[in-house]
């Protein structure tokens, strides 16, 4: 990337790590519904989305490799929790289906908008990938919104569960947009407009859909974003996930299937 100076490279890496780690971890969480989905179609849906997201993380790790980081498998499978840059939201256990669905809605909408913004990135290799991912994630957001609307307009119990899950998810979801140390570099170099703009666009998109579902987000005075994940501070849930995910790799790093 000849337009990069060192500061740009570091900023791009920081951004890529966040996105790739988010994809890998939420992908792993999605896969935990395989075999357990409440109905067969949902089992398949979460399994498919898991496959999409883990595949997407791989190509993002490949971009990091181009910028001088270790190869995708090494980066994905050999780091400890404190070296991960995912937001805490994605590492929470799948919980009940309402929690997984609302997280899916809030997170995937943010992800879709992030990739939409990145289609115009000056970092061309990332822009190309973003164009591709946007088309794939579109199916994830359609799925999420369909269930949000259906269950919120289902019966009293389903609506109450969706509202309660939304309350539980809200501050965690705001943590997606934790500002990094390279916000201005990313913005000035045209790589990415930044987390603040992403959050704004996200709110503009999701609030009408939440209203349409007849649900409400907490009062603004109660908004308290859960930050830390982007800087390597994680919940107690991440390390066990990583340990499980890397079990085979730890036994035999050269294993193939």
């Amino acid at each position, binding site marked *: 990337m000849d337009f990069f100076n060192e500061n740009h490279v570091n900023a791009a890496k920081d951004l890529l790590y966040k996105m790739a780690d988010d994809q890998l971890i939420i992908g792993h969480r999605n896969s935990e519904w395989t075999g357990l989905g409440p109905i067969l*179609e949902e089992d*398949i*849906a979460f*399994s*498919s*989305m898991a*496959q*999409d*997201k*883990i*595949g*997407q993380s*791989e*190509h993002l790790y490949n971009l990091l490799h181009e910028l001088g980081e270790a190869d995708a498998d090494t980066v994905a499978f050999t780091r400890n929790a404190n070296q991960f840059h995912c937001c805490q939201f994605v590492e929470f256990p799948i919980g009940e289906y309402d929690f997984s669905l609302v997280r899916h809605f809030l997170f995937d909408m943010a992800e879709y908008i992030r990739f939409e913004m990145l289609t115009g990135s000056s970092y061309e*290799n990332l822009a*190309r*990938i973003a*164009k*591709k*991912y*946007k*088309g*794939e994630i*579109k*199916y994830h957001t*359609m*799925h999420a919104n*369909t269930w949000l609307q259906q269950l919120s307009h289902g019966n009293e119990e389903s609506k109450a569960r969706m509202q309660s899950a939304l309350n539980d998810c809200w501050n965690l979801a705001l943590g997606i947009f934790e500002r990094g140390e390279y916000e201005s570099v990313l913005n000035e170099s045209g790589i990415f407009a930044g987390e603040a703009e992403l959050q704004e666009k996200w709110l503009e998109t999701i609030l009408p859909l939440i209203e349409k579902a007849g649900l409400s987000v907490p009062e603004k005075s109660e908004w308290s974003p859960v930050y830390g994940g982007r800087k390597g501070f994680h919940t107690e849930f991440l390390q066990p996930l990583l340990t499980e995910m890397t079990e085979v790799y730890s036994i035999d790093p050269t294993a193939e299937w």
Partner: protein
Amino acid sequence: MSTTVIDSDFIREILLEVKDPEIPTISIVDLGIVTDIKVDGDAVYVQLTPTFAGCPALKIMEQMVRDRLAQEPGIAKITVETTFDKQWNTDMITDAGREALLKHGLAPPKHHEGYLELDVLSDTPCPYCGSRNTTLKSPFGPTLCRSLHYCNNCLQAFEGFKPVG
């Protein structure tokens, strides 16, 4: 005795023999994932692009292309690469490709020209009886590129190759 001229048309022709390992009726050329072919003397470069980032058949298809090219005596150097330089979408599937999908019992994706919402996916004619009286059961199916539908006319479940933008 005729001599074969190895040019990009010739390469495209022989790659028609390389089929999608998950849908063996469609060639990778008709699927639209061969995005560039360059021939320089006895060196051949083929560029592929993924249908889906998480498609497990990617590496297999790269190898299938290498194996097929290696059978041609006039080719000494083979380079196969998967990139996102030109991003795949289902409008890149050729008419022959759409026929091939149908032959496999998969409803071909609707031309979407960039507009993709659930109503596009819902409007999928049955590959068995052709009826448009069908219901979308799920946008996710047995592989990343397929969706699940039900035909209310011939009362059969079927799969569609879903439109991707």
